[in-house]
């Protein structure tokens, strides 16, 4: 069964052998950003989940990182 793994630590997840890794926002909140407005947070979460759903439909030869169409601004 294909699995899409959303995590802020995508390189580490790839090393551990996860086949479909989606780069999330931040370790404490990989799938969203509580500092954004509700509307902007929803758009961000949507972009990450869509990226994960697309990854599920793709064939991969081995561990692969998918980067959603979002902007990373926080450390």
């Amino acid at each position: 069964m294909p699995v899409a793994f959303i995590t802020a630590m995508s390189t580490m997840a790839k090393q551990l052998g996860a086949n479909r890794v989606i780069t999330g926002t931040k370790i404490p909140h990989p799938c969203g950003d509580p500092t954004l407005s509700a509307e902007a947070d929803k758009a961000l979460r949507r972009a990450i989940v869509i990226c994960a759903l697309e990854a599920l439909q793709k064939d991969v030869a081995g561990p692969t990182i998918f980067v959603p169409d979002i902007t990373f601004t926080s450390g």
Partner: protein
Amino acid sequence: MRLELATFSLRDIQFGSHTACSKGTLTINKDELAKLILEDKRVSSADLDVAYPGEKTRIVKIHDVVEPRVKVSGPGCVFPGILGPVETVGEGRTHTLSGITVMTSAEYRPTILSGTEARSGGIVDMWGPGASLTPFGATINIVLMVKLIDGVTELEAHEAIQSAEFRVARRLAETTRNLAPEGVETFELSICDPSLPRVVYVLTCLTEWHHAHSLIAYCGLPIRESLPTLMHPNELLDGTITVDARRGGGIFTTTWIWMTHPIVLELLRRHGKQLNFLGVILQRTRFETEFGKQVSATCVSQMARLLGAEGAVITRIVTSGNNFVDVALTVQALERKGIKTVFLTPEWGGKDGNELPLVFYVPEATAMVSTGSFERDVTVPKPDKVIGVGDTRLVNVYSEDKPFSPRDEVTLPSSFLMTGGVDWFGHLTLTCEEN
């Protein structure tokens, strides 16, 4: 910047009617020092005891440890920004009392009851298997037992514990102000033979921006989300870097290990002889995004390149997998800029050593030194005496754990002991055998 570090080696400590240092013996007036601690109105009670190497004594609830030092000439003071104004230190002359420590066994009513910020303090054994895992098994330790009043905030608790410890340490070092030291070592990054290899030390420090104190402070200012900072190594010897004095426990560093840093001292001693020591890059780690980790790694490697480094030594503190990634990415970034890098780190590996030793891997990390494992258990025997603040019948290190009796033989994760079987910077002489 030229610093003379004048050493007074102490072989004995006695309680007496006045506080003074003479011929390797430090006499302490207990009442005077207790009174000094009680000047801080946040302290409700203060007492002192001394633990000697070899005696069957267990010290509990330890929150921080420090080596007594005082500045006798040159700008600023030891622990700038805390015991005096903010000042660039590392120049002039500093007196240090070696062979002894001041350690604080402290108790207060915490407002944080769980998580990594909630601590009851670490343990030091003065004999047996526990003593071999800590530099404090071989030093004479003056234990301050400090209780704080109710109602202090977490940051006030840190300040009060640290202030008691630092002021007592300064008072003890003051006893040597007019005495001749046994030895004086001079540390200076003078211009040297340009053919010597140019080496930088990357001192990474995990900090937690969201806690009352972030863990590591520069001139008393807790470092939160900064990019790397360039330091003169002498600044460390004068106590520019301090820690969160509430923590304790094996997995956190004490102030003592930063001010007596063996890698910094060794690089200073070899400067102009075998290498050209360029300075210390203090790198804040534990960014919460891979993006942040990459920015920090890139920034350190560029700073090292601008310094003209050909080689780098990099260490880490605190047993965090998160922080391991920052440091590994920094090793990668340094190597990719052509800077040969040696990486010192402890391992995981599980209780029997059969699990994965590292959580992350970069192919560029080709020269690594293991500084121990914090996942092993240690059985420590029954002591004759337990020193610690308040009720010592039951203690714990992590507030959420089941308390245990320190008055009996007990098997503990090595991380309960300071410094937990992990030798961050090379204070111990432990090694391993390949079977």
